[in-house]
């Protein structure tokens, strides 16, 4: 029996790219993840990325970053709880560096 998972393309832009070492270009999930799942997985094993992306006080990356799903800023959908369909692209872009 083969498990058919969900593959999500990832593009990390700007200064977050160097923090994430530019290594991740896609992530696989057993079922459709939420944007929150994608972000948490992206930060796994990368304390540097977590330190610039995640705001511990509010428990969200939103104060520090724009996150786009299929070109739409996720605040225009259901925020971090938006479901990410198979084959879609998530873009993460720092708001707070590089002005």
């Amino acid at each position, binding site marked *: 029996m083969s498990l058919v998972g969900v593959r999500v393309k990832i593009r990390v*832009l*700007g*200064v977050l*790219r*160097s*923090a994430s070492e530019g290594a991740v270009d896609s992530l696989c999930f057993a079922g459709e993840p939420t944007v929150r799942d994608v972000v948490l997985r992206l930060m796994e094993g990368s304390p540097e990325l977590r330190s*610039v992306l995640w*705001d511990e*006080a*509010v428990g*969200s990356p*939103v*104060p*520090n970053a*724009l996150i*786009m*799903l*299929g*070109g*739409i*800023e996720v*605040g*225009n*959908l*259901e925020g971090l709880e*938006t*479901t990410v*369909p198979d084959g*879609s692209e998530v*873009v993460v*872009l*720092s*708001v*707070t*560096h*590089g*002005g």
Partner: protein
Amino acid sequence: MNPSLAPVCTRCKSADSVYHRPYSGERLCGRCFSETLVERVKRTINRFNMLEHDNRVAVGVSGGKDSLTLLTVLHEVEAEWPNSELVAVCVDEGIRGYRDEALGIAERSCRELGVEMRVVGFRDLFGETMDEIASRDRELGACSYCGVLRRRALNEAARAVGADRLATGHNLDDMAQTVMLNLLRGDTIRAEGFEPGGRGLGSYVKRVKPLCEVPERETTFYAYLRGFELQSVRCPYAGEAMRGDARRFLNQMEYRRPGTKFIVYQTGLKLASKGEVEVAGLCPLCGSPTSGGVCRVCELVGRAKI
């Protein structure tokens, strides 16, 4: 919600929206987002009498998203004013890696828009690079030196290109942070530094901030929509700034209570308009206008060389 089910744009009511402005409730398609950003900049320019139809405007371009947004928007606005001119002025502080990348981005962007670009360096103006200053024992954080010296360098560059306005990419977040920092330091809000329309004092070119009512999230989304080349290297000294604490606080407040940054900025405008501009004379070392004695630039450069 599936991304294919994004709400329709609340402005044009035809295209799918791509961006939500929590503080106003607008949901905008890419075109309406860009148009409303440019409209807001134009309104800000008019409200504060920032520019006249025949200005030669030096645009401070660092290569970051804010200054590229400023340059692109002013390039669009300037097309309606045939007697005005834009020239990009860039400061090379001498921060290895960080500034090299940004200047490359600035150069390519200026070439694409057909805008003349002039670079001035800390070494030429002050005798040392920022890396050299930062490597010394010092009481102050690197940003305290860099901010003051950058302001002077931009002014020198603007004068060198014969500009009568200097436009900088300060956005709403920068303005709100400045208000917070002044409060935290127990300072008054100095009108000459805060007023978006600037004040031409002595040898200072009138400095204007056309993006002062555009949130940083929106300059970032504009940069994303326009496909700007983005900096990938963080400034190595960024963590030293107290401004970072104010930024975090305001970002958290904005997340919880949308509109907070606008309120703080409006408060700053009210407080700044009551402040007097303090110019007591000229710096005995460099001749720049100062509130008294040696100016801050000469003080810092002298301190850095100790």
